[in-house]
């Protein structure tokens, strides 16, 4: 596929790995904050290619993984306790809620459907008047424009049976939280390429300046990731902070203005809990006043579980998401937690770091 295959060229991969190894005068720690990048890194062994010059930490780059248990439990309650059709991206179906997952809810008779995008869910609502259709809207800024399009469409079409269960998160506040945490050990970040495709890079400038970090908007293929690391190492070796764009074929400094305008029309910034991390100030998006009629959390408030859910005590998903440990350092990895019987979301989401290690190494993964 054009714009993809060229970035898997083994010659370029080797040359970039050698450049990184040759340039680093000390060991640097670089965190990627995108599950797609995490999977590419682990699947292709890029972490081994750049060691020991660069140690890669995996950040909270998985929107599915950081979706709060409360949101997932409400989605399950809607699917099982109402006549609504619950629409979701396929990635959410196996994520464990307090009791079970959406796949189980479907097996028990809940109408849970996988859609390609939120607009398909809105169109479904148009075809099923009188039956509520709820879209489980999780994602980073990459996905927010698609949800905004569906919200605007529903409002213009006066669809009274379309709802959004919103758990949208914003990446820059999470980087700020990680960089500013006591004992932070990240020297540079690879910023998520498609988040920057939508939003541009301006939001990262103050974070880079405040913490003296290089931040590189980076793509997803092996050549992209290694070039992103090479740019970060060049900055680190020069003692410079700043924002660079590696993923030039898709990222402009100003992002996509029409997509950003759509997000701004529908959403406002809000404090949001990130599963495993806690409340991140400004770390999410909430519906603006004209769109609040679409809010499923309000429309289905009567179904919200009354007790705050509890995470399994032995699951270290929060530590994995913060980059405090790598998945195999968790005692449950491959033992009490496997893709068949997951304790935490990172083991089953296609972008989860635990799933990345499981796919490459199985239960034999070693720290």
């Amino acid at each position, binding site marked *: *596929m054009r714009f993809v295959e060229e970035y898997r060229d083994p010659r370029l991969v080797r040359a970039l790995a050698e450049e990184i190894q040759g340039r680093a005068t000390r060991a640097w720690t670089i965190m990627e904050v995108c599950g797609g990048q995490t999977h590419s890194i682990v699947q292709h062994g890029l972490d081994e290619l750049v060691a020991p010059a660069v140690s890669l930490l995996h950040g909270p780059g998985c929107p599915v993984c950081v979706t709060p248990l409360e949101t997932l439990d409400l989605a399950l309650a809607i699917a099982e306790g109402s006549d609504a059709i619950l629409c979701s991206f396929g990635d959410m179906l196996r994520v464990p809620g307090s009791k079970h997952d959406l796949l189980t809810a479907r097996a028990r008779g809940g109408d849970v459907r996988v859609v390609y995008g939120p607009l398909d869910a809105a169109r479904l609502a148009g075809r099923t008047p009188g039956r509520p259709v709820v879209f489980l809207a999780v994602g980073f800024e990459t996905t927010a424009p698609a949800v905004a399009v569906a919200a605007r469409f529903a409002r213009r*079409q006066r669809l009274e049976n379309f709802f959004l269960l919103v758990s949208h998160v914003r990446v820059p506040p999470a980087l700020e939280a990680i960089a500013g945490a006591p004992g932070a050990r990240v020297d540079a970040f690879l910023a998520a390429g498609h988040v920057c495709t939508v939003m541009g890079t301006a939001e990262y400038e103050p974070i880079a300046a405040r913490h003296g970090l290089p931040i590189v908007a980076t793509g997803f293929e092996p050549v992209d990731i290694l070039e992103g690391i090479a740019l970060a190492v060049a900055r680190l070796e020069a003692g410079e902070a700043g924002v660079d764009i590696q993923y030039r074929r898709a990222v402009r400094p100003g992002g996509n203005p029409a997509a950003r305008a759509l997000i701004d029309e529908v959403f406002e910034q809000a404090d949001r809990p990130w599963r495993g991390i806690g409340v991140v100030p400004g770390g999410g998006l909430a519906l603006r006043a004209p769109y609040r009629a679409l809010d499923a959390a309000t429309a289905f408030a009567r179904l919200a579980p009354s007790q705050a859910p509890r995470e399994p005590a032995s699951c270290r998903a929060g530590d994995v998401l913060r980059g405090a440990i790598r998945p195999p350092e968790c005692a449950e990895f491959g033992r009490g937690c496997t893709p068949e019987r997951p304790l935490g979301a990172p083991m089953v989401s296609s972008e989860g770091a635990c799933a990345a290690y499981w796919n490459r190494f199985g239960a034999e993964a070693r720290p």
Partner: protein
Amino acid sequence: MCLAVPGRVVEVYEEDGLRMARVDFAGVRLRVCLETLPEAEVGAWLLVHAGVALQRLDADAAEAGLALLAEAAAAGAGAGAEEP
């Protein structure tokens, strides 16, 4: 979840008040919403996520970047490396 796929616009049309396109993804044709990229025309390469166009792909930037990397690779490890 942030996976986005490159595809080429084969047709632009309106549907239910939305600007839409048929986009070819390596032989598979799907409908894509262009509300986020209203100026995209037939032949444009797009990056598409969850049924919505995220951005137009810049073929010139892609080729220039790859040429620089290939040059650096040919020049050998450590030499001719790209400056940020």
